[in-house]
């Protein structure tokens, strides 16, 4: 099986990555990082939301607040990972988050047709 980069078939993979991932810069230098949840399929809704906020003039504060939260979370995460991760084997580190992922995944799967 060969991997694909077909533009149509991989659009969601692309949006997931470019809009939500990638290297994070040192916070002092950033004027903007789209660290606000931007989901590919909901781009329109998200962007329309921003327009509305701009119109009512609350964007500035909201943006500042979002950025501050994002920076704090990143910093916190970094500290946590630095203090926790080295003590765990990489394998266990991954698996410890696996249980909750599974639970999360199947908890919404209520409809079973027989």
């Amino acid at each position, binding site marked *: *099986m*060969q*991997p*694909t*980069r077909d*533009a149509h*078939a*991989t*659009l*969601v*993979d*692309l*949006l*997931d*990555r*470019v*809009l*939500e*991932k*990638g*290297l*994070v*810069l*040192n916070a002092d*230098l*950033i*004027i*903007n*990082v*789209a660290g606000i949840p931007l989901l590919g399929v909901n*781009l*329109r809704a998200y*962007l*329309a939301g*921003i*327009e509305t906020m701009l119109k009512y003039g609350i964007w500035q504060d909201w943006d500042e607040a979002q950025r501050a939260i994002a920076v704090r979370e990143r910093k916190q995460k*970094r500290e946590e*990972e*630095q203090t926790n*991760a*080295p003590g765990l084997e990489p394998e266990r580190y*991954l698996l410890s*988050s*696996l249980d909750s*992922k*599974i639970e*999360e*995944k*199947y908890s919404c*799967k*209520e409809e*079973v*047709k*027989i």
Partner: protein
Amino acid sequence: MAEILCIRCQGRYVYGVTIGDKEVRLGAIGIDGSEVYTIPYGDISAIVHDCSTKPYRSTDDEMVKNWVRAHQSVLDAAGEQLGVVIPLGFDTILEPRDDATSPDQVVRDWLKLDYGRLREVMRKIEGKNEYAVQVSYEPGLIVKQISEQSQEIRKIKEEMAAKSPGTAYMYRQKLERAVKADTERLADEWFSDFYGRIKKHTDDVVIEKTRKLNNGQMMLLNLSCLVAREKVDSLGKELEEINNMGGFSIHFSGPWPPYSFVAKPIVTVKGE
């Protein structure tokens, strides 16, 4: 109103960081046809274009998609021409803090500040790419398989057939619970099995949230895999085998720049 006017060009949109100590011009391949070039510091360079200090925003999602595609194609071109590339996410723009600093200097200051971290990330991703792997299954198939195999479910069904409609309703609920429990058990088994089989062909794996699919299938696992060039074929073969089991469909995309493996701070490996 998404036209980007670069009047003062005080911003530098950063696509990624690559290796190289010379300024390289990559041409007008950037977002909205911007000229893309590199700003070196020491032996590493930022891949940038000049822009205003206003972030890219639009209500037209086709336009945003085109920006995202352009962002990606710059990283593709840089990877081909320059070698290892650390990808940045969309809309990362640097601007000078004061009038005394030039925009290029800000980029160099950042490269200098993060030099150690950037070299470490490069070492980790050198010769590797990211691949997206998603495995989905047909819900009808799993239920059929369970119904045929489970003694308990067969028993409930037999009993149910002989009951009055009122009692049958209770049996029906019992049946649903039994099927649900079995479905979860089986899906967990598949998850662990596939995860283990895929992981051994990778250098690192991130478990992503599963997505809702609109073709009626259920996504069982969604992984971002960091894979060395020479291991891509063996990963492809493993996925082929999973595909051949029947009942599963596999999405395998890439190569991508390692977006999912550059955001985390580098954790010192034991023994280093």
